[in-house]
């Protein structure tokens, strides 16, 4: 067998082999719908001669001599090649994915951001009522590193970034995985304007790696939630309490909702059905002016009578998918504590685990966190967007187990 491995090293891609029909090829073997044996690699596929019988899909190395003889150099055992162990994405996509990761790192390091690590298992994984996690002893897997990153900001770090795994139980879809890679970056003495500049510069930096570089070189559009509701649904967002205009619009558009649905749920039913798929089609788009009720950890804009209440939050959209979510950070310790308390109450009502108050984080806010801006970006989704793909399976080696 070792001698065969040596011979396999000199193999050609299937595309190259098809031009000469002589030499060694290897790839994944399966039968097609006509019952023929087909050998496939990243370069292409070929139908094998009829005299080669194949029982089950497997990895196969073959040598073809110029007198038409074929020799099987290596055939992987059938068990090792069941559907379960097959890689989802092919080698080419995985390679492109990792070069994007490297360029993201280079972008931040060149701007003298410090790359940092924060714990994966934490006492408070994030208080958001709708995010779920898994327990580890007395801790939880983080749903986001943001609370620890802000502790670093309060400790004197002025520009930091992190790329690491985060966990959200139950989030599984074409653009969602229960464990995924998050990029977060933060600047002190900064606001949404600096995040908008960062996003533009980052996308331009990554453009050469994209399938459609010009798309990512264009300056992102900047629009508010009010503007997109007016544009796509011809409706005015007036406040975040009166459900009647939202219900009327849902009725008009033929979307069902429940009487107990709150304002934000009705908002999202409209947004997801009629607005989100249209965002960022011609060039990347930054959506801002979020309703104050969806502030999460963002600072709220000062309320003015007769003006739609908003918060300083933005999201980046590329071809209908949400890529990043940024905040002009809430740094007021009293309001932060009040929001945590409110979220703990909701978690309790929903019958979900109520996490302990993150006192170390609140202490850091009390010690004085300068005005800061930070943003969380889904790395896997960024890769999908750059490669113009639509499903996590296309860029991840494994499907969730």
């Amino acid at each position, binding site marked *: 067998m070792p001698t065969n491995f040596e011979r396999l090293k000199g193999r050609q891609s299937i595309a190259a082999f098809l031009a000469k029909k002589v030499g060694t090829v290897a790839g994944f073997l399966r039968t097609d719908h006509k019952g023929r044996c087909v050998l496939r690699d990243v370069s292409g596929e070929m139908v094998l001669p009829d005299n080669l019988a194949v029982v089950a899909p497997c990895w196969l190395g073959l040598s073809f001599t110029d007198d038409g003889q074929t020799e099987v150099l290596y055939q992987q055992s059938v068990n090792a090649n069941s559907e379960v162990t097959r890689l989802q994405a092919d080698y080419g996509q995985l390679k492109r994915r990792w070069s994007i990761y490297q360029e993201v790192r280079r972008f931040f390091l060149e701007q003298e951001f410090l790359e940092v690590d924060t714990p994966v298992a934490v006492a408070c994984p994030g208080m958001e009522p709708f995010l779920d996690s898994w327990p580890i002893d007395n801790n939880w897997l983080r749903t986001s590193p943001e609370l620890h990153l802000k502790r670093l900001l309060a400790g004197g770090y002025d520009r930091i970034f992190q790329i690491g795994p985060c966990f959200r139980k139950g989030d599984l879809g074409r653009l969602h995985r229960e464990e995924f890679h998050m990029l977060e970056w933060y600047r002190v003495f900064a606001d949404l304007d600096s995040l908008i500049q960062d996003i533009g510069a980052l996308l331009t930096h990554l453009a050469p790696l994209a399938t459609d570089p010009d798309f990512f070189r264009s300056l992102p559009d900047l629009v508010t939630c009010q503007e997109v509701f007016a544009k796509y649904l011809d409706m005015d967002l007036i406040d975040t309490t009166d459900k009647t205009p939202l219900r009327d619009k849902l009725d008009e558009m033929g979307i069902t909702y429940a009487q107990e649905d709150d304002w934000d749920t009705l908002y999202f039913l409209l947004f*997801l059905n009629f607005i989100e798929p249209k965002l960022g089609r011609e060039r990347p788009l930054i959506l801002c002016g979020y309703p104050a009720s969806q502030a999460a950890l963002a600072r709220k804009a000062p309320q003015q009578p007769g003006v739609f209440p908003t918060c300083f939050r933005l999201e980046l959209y590329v071809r209908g998918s949400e890529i990043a979510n940024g905040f002009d950070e809430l740094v007021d310790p009293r309001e932060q504590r009040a929001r945590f308390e409110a979220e703990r109450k909701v978690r309790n009502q929903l019958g979900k685990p109520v996490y302990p108050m993150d006192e170390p984080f609140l202490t850091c806010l009390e010690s004085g966190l300068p005005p800061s801006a930070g943003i969380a970006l889904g790395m896997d989704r960024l890769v999908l967007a750059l490669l113009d793909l639509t499903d996590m399976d296309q860029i991840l080696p494994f499907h969730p187990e």
Partner: protein
Amino acid sequence: MLKTDQFRKKLKIELNGDPYIMLDVDFVRPGKGQGFVRTKLRNMISGSVTERTFKSNETAKPAEVREDEMQFLYQDGEDFAFMDNKTYEQITMSRESLGDTANYLYEGITGTISFFNNIPINCEIANFVEHEITDCEPGIKGNSATNAQKPAKISTGFKLNVPLFVEQNSWIRIDTRTGEYAERCKRPEGR
């Protein structure tokens, strides 16, 4: 009741009294808010496709759709008679509920018929079926390399385009998903 995390492609659910089959399911969580499940649904009676977004904890009623293998017997005006292969029970389906499938039925062909509340709503047949050309212009030899086509008719009265070399009374295979000519074939045994 089915919860949204049980939603899968091909799942059948009942909405407003109609059965729907799920063509596509995707989870989405905008920002860090509540999760939603986007679905694309096909009405199994009308065939129309709609999109519907469910809240993550919402439920849907499973549609009681039964499927039976049946044999096509004969056509009587706009009614098509089928017989259950096991019980020999007979039913009729209208051309409207058969849709395009009516174009490809021949005596003895087996179809999978879906029943919703005991009413036949859909009939699935094989992706490829063989039919004899009953009406077309004479074939032109040596023209197999071009893509030019001519109109032709099969015994059910269905019209389609076939390559120029296809002769009257020869047999062809039709892709029932598109209604297009697939290839020439031999007369199947027993037909």
